[in-house]
Every structure is written in C-alpha cells, then in structure tokens.
C-alpha cells in the first residue's frame, strides 16, 4: 500500500487517470447516448475476420443510433424523406414501403427506444461491410388515426448490415429475427 501511494505521488494522480483511460480504451466496446439519441452500446469482442478500429467503432455506434432516431421519427410522422440520411439499399426500400402503406391506411407507429445492446459479429477484410446483432428494448405503439390498436414493450432482435459511405456508415439491411440468437 505504501509503495502504491509512493508510486501515485511520484507519477501524479492525473497521469494515473490517463493510464487508466488508455487501458480502458483498448477494450473493443463503444457506447453513445446523446440527449436525443437512443442509447447504443456496441460490443466488438467477437468480431471477425478483422478487428474493428477505435474510430470505426465510434462511427458505427454513432451512425446506428442516428439511424434508429430517424427510423422512429419517420414511422411516427410517415415522412419517407427522413430515411435518406442513414439508410440505403434494402433497408431503405423496406422502410419506405412500410411508411407508404401506413400513409394509405392512416396508421402510424411510435417507437419508444429504451436502448440497444449491439454485438458486431462480422467485419469484412476490405472494410466494406459490417454485420451487427442488435437486442433492442422497444416500446411499440401503433395508431389508427387517434386510436391505439397495438401496444407492446419487448426485446427485439435485429440482424443489421452496415456499409461505409463517404463520411458515415449506412444501414443497408435491418431484419428482425426470431427470439433465439441468429
């Protein structure tokens, strides 16, 4: 104990805190929760075939959180254009179709997002695709006009494929999968 105290006094508490921060930063886990964004925690410990870089992990976490915010806003307001910033390919097409049908039938869907535990499972060697498995805590309410026709709160599992764009990651595929791990 005496030695530790002496070491801390020599090195300085701020330096020790810096060391602790660097040590913690080495773990492949990323988390984001801005005031208006859903909480997304990304665990990349079992990713293959290539590891995830720190900045890439942060970018994926941030962009995936933004995607869920846009998804919730788009389905609640039936505004297809809200999907353009974070979604591409099949994911955007499917959500567009859903919103288009909601517009025709007078429905809207509200997502109360209570957070995402995301596991990164695949990152291609060329860095062109990343696959995630997301366990999302969501409170889902469907309205027909002013009437609530469906409400549930549950854990949903999603298989997600993300691809990099010029300056961000896009959700290319977002598929709900059955309760047992895909």
């Amino acid at each position, binding site marked *: 104990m005496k030695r530790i105290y002496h070491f801390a006094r020599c090195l300085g508490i701020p330096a020790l805190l810096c060391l602790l921060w660097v040590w913690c930063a080495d773990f492949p886990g990323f988390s984001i929760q801005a005031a208006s964004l859903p909480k997304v925690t990304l665990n990349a410990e079992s990713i293959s075939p290539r590891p995830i870089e720190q900045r890439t992990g942060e970018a994926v976490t941030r962009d995936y959180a933004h995607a869920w915010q846009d998804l919730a806003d788009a389905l609640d307001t039936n505004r297809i254009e809200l999907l353009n910033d974070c979604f591409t390919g099949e994911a955007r097409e499917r959500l567009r179709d*859903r919103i288009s049908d909601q517009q025709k039938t007078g429905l809207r869907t509200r997502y109360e997002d209570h957070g995402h535990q995301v596991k990164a499972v695949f990152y291609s060697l060329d860095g062109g695709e990343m696959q995630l498995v997301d366990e999302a805590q969501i409170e889902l309410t*469907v309205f027909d006009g002013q009437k609530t026709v469906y409400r549930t709160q549950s854990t949903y599992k999603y298989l997600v494929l993300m691809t990099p764009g010029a300056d961000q990651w896009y959700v290319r595929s977002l598929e709900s999968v059955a309760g047992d791990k895909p």
Partner: protein
Amino acid sequence: MIVALKMIVTIRILVVLLAFPALGQSIAIRPPHTVIAGISFSVTTEGSGSATFYLLGPSHVVKKTIQLGQDLPISGSDVATSGLYQLVACDSSGCSSADLYVLPSSPERLSFLVHPSRVPVSTANAINATAVVSDRFRNTVVAPVTVMFHFSSADARPYSRSGPTSRGIAWLKIGSTTKQGPLQIVAAVGETSEARVIQQVASEACGLRMQATSEARSVRLRTDPVRDCSGNALPDGTIVSFTKVDDAGRSTVDTPLKKGVANAQFTLSGRARISVACGVVLGNEVSIAGQP
C-alpha cells in the same frame, strides 16, 4: 334464503354480461407461430361480427374488414419480407393481437463482393471474397448453408473452396496465382451462382539488368526484358529509373517500359557509375570511363 341468494348472483352475472357484451364473445386471433416468406397461410379468428384486421410487417401494412369466427387467408405476397409481424383485430369491444415470425425462404440470391479488382501475382491472402446469401425476396438466409467458390484462370487448373455461412455471410481469403491475366471467381449456392473477374498483374521486377553501350561522350542504356519472379512481363508504361553519378554530379532519368524494355542515354563527364531500379527493386550497376 339460499334461493334468493342464487337469484341475486344470477342477476348480477346477467347485468355484467349485458353491460360488457364482449366478455361473453371476446375476439381472438391465432396465427401459426412461424411461416415461410412468400407462402400463403390462414389465421384463425374467434368472436362474432365484423372487425378491422391489421397485418403489421417490416415492409408492408394491411388493413381490412374481416368477419370474426372465420379463417382469414393471408396471401404470400403480404408476407414476402422475413421478420416479426403483428396481427391485430379490433372491434367495438377492443383489440386482440398476436405475433408471427416470417422466416426466410430457400437461398436463391447471392450478393458477391471480391476485393481488390487488380492484384499482383503470387501474393498470399491477397484476394478477399464475401458472399451474402438471401432468398428470392432478398431476405438474408440466416440458417447455415454452404457456399462454393470456384476459381479459374487461363493458365492454371481450376480449383474450388467451400465455406459455410454464418448469419447469411460466407467469406474467404486466398492468394493470387503465379500467372498474370484474368482470374474468374464464381460463388454458388444450389442453382444460384455469381461470377466476378479480377485481374492478376505482374508483381515487382525480378533480376533487373541493363546493358551499357558507351560512345565518345555518352552512354546508351537498355534493360533486358523486365519480368517478375514468376516470369510475367511487367506492363508497358512501368517506370524504370536510371541514375548516373560522375564528375558533373548525380542525375536520374525516369523512363517507361516500351515493348518490355527501357532505354536511356546519358552524357558522361569523367568516370561514371550508373544504376537501374524499378519500383523498390534495384538492378545491376555499371561503371564507365567517359572522357573528362
């Protein structure tokens, strides 16, 4: 006394049933737990009278009026997207709901990516191939399947590798062959296949040599045909650098390969040492005694 008590209880039950008609004939909706994407099926409904039915899927919403107590047919086109669906029936007494998982159909599509498009010959683990397996509705086939990768090029025997998918993705990395030219890679699942072609190009120069022919005040230099260690000719346009050091100092001429060889000429000032290089590869060095 007991008879009077029974009558009171019976009347109360009747009052409750009259006040809440749905309690006697509550609605219910019973779909199968899972169905296959694109396959039609029926949902059992309980209750009586008409109700509004909602099918809430990942990419599709259906809203229609149904008669309770009858089987409700659902078209395969309404469940083409795999994932979780909510089925809801509402009448004046309230709503009843049930969940339904639509599973992907059999593998019928491949998204196939190969990287890079050009690769030097004889390079280990230089080619990455990734295949994403989906059904005919573009749902990712999550159940494991085996993807075959077939490789063929003009001068080498074709060969194959296989890999199982994990959550719909199969990948592998392989080295390039020793001969330059196109390499075709075909990914196949069942009857479905996707082909990609990448170009294998010559690697770094190997055994780079030049010949010098001295004249009165100059020297002409010419390389042997420039090839890599597998004997592939480096493409015309590849830059070869000749460097001369003599009494006048140091000078370098960069010249492209033409018809497989590079030529250069230097004016000499005293004794000169001339070397040749191509990329990171150094060739031989010649020493020539020029006139001062």
